């Protein structure tokens, strides 16, 4: 589904991501973990196309998409959420989700009318909101939702686009334990029912070990380990770099 080869990105002297080569199989739920500043979000930007790499390439479903900008990669099937909630605050919950569908599906340059575009995208958006449990808040401005629901809305927007690959950047960040549990359940449901390939960046180790099929560990921008949750738990390198304080 996704493969990176020698992917790197530097900001001045700082090498945020260096020589990252990894592959994610279709249907897999992969977690990427690592301490703060390990380059996880930068890696997401490189995969989704918001940042251009300084080295290496990105292959998606066998095609080299390194040269494509973020919008084109999204249209090919890579949707994402952001670590810091990124929504359209003054638009309604429904419109946030609907516009996500419309932008991917096309018809956005219909200047007058376009009823069919609006109707079709609204249907799909409502399905997605129903799936995420946000249907009864569809008409509220997104900015009035509590933080946890805003995180869910981001996922709803991405899921509504029916991507092949979903990138979730710390979906449980700042959530209360109850909300975290609900979000984990939603992600599991999305992964199973929609048969999506998911890459998840996450700090909460309970969430990671609960959800992930495989885990990749980043440290100072480099991939230092990869394996099943059990293997990662057992790895001495990972313990030293990251998990030492937790167990």
């Amino acid at each position: 589904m996704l493969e990176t080869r020698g992917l790197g990105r530097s900001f001045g002297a700082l090498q945020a991501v260096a020589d990252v080569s990894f592959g994610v199989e279709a249907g897999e739920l992969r977690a990427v973990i690592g301490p703060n500043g390990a380059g996880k979000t930068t890696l997401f930007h490189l995969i989704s196309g918001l940042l251009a790499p300084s080295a290496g390439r990105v292959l998606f479903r066998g095609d080299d998409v390194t040269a494509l900008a973020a919008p084109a990669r999204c249209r090919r099937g890579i949707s994402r959420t952001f670590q810091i909630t990124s929504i359209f605050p003054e638009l309604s919950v429904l419109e946030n989700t609907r516009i996500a569908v419309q932008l991917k599906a096309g018809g956005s340059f219909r200047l007058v009318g376009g009823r069919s575009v609006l109707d079709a995208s609204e249907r799909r958006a409502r399905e997605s909101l129903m799936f995420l449990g946000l249907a009864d808040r569809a008409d509220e401005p997104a900015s009035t939702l509590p933080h946890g629901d805003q995180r869910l809305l981001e996922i709803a927007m991405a899921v509504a686009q029916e991507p092949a690959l979903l990138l979730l950047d710390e979906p449980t960040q700042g959530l209360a334990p109850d909300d975290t549990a609900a979000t984990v359940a939603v992600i599991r449901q999305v992964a199973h029912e929609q048969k999506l390939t998911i890459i998840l960046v996450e700090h909460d180790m309970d969430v990671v070990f609960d959800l992930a099929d495989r885990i990749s560990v980043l440290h100072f921008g480099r991939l230092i380990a990869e394996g099943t949750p059990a293997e990662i738990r057992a790895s001495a390198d990972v313990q030293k770099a990251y998990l030492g304080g937790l167990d």
Partner: protein
Amino acid sequence: MSPSRVLGAAALVALALGPWVLARHQLSLLTDLLISGLFAMSLDLILGYTGMLSFGHAAYFGLGAYASALVLLEFAQPVPVALAAGMLLAGAVAVPVGWLSTRSTGVYFAMLTLAFAQFLYTVAYKWRSLTGGSDGIAGVPKTELFWGGPSLASSQAFYLLAAACVVLSLLICRAIVRSPFGRALQAIRENERRFTSLGRDPRPFKLVVFVIAAVFAGLAGALFAPFRGFASPEVMFWVFSGQGLMMVTIGGIGTLIGPILGAMVFILLQEILSSYTEHWMIFTGVVFVLIVVFLPGGLVGTARRLGVRG
């Protein structure tokens, strides 16, 4: 019928009755208000719906005015031909300006649009052989409605044409902001980065709406020239761009009808205050500040908050 529909219908009837109930100078003032309203409404497309702060919108009003003046004076064509010429010239110039300006955002976008507008102002000022320099082009006639058709020279006839143009423009702009394209504009306004990550480059959208806004500003200018009988560099000066921003803000950003009302309030204030004092700008400024501070969302935004739903 919803209250806003009732209000809209009432406004339409009032506009249509204008020529039969208003005195000539009142009708003339109303024409002026409508033309300024059209200008402000066109600015709202980019400012209110797309979140692009253009500080050079007067340039397109001015281009419309000059094109219209030349077509009427030099070629004696019917007024609609002049209007089409004004819209065409404004839109054509907006393509390269918008293409360059939309490469940047925020203050840089504002500065670029301002710079281009001042450049066009200077061209109008210096190109004496074409534009008449600082004197402008005077004696622009209100010709006929179509070849061999009724004359628009009377203030009633011209008023009806202007009112029809403004109402039609409002309806078109309303259809645009409710279309898939218009919805995309509002998403760009809310969060450009998110928009990008959802599958579309915002720049083509911004360029298209910039050109559309310029075309409607051009129409306003093209009406202005025969209405006032002249086109001069002042209508392209940055002060008029700034006044446009004030009109939009007073009436209500992102409401279309609000900026039309805002323009009316602005011009009426100017009319009334300037008959008492030459320092009317101070008082207009005070009113502007009061509205921004105490009526956020402008007149229409405030009315909607108080329960008149649109």
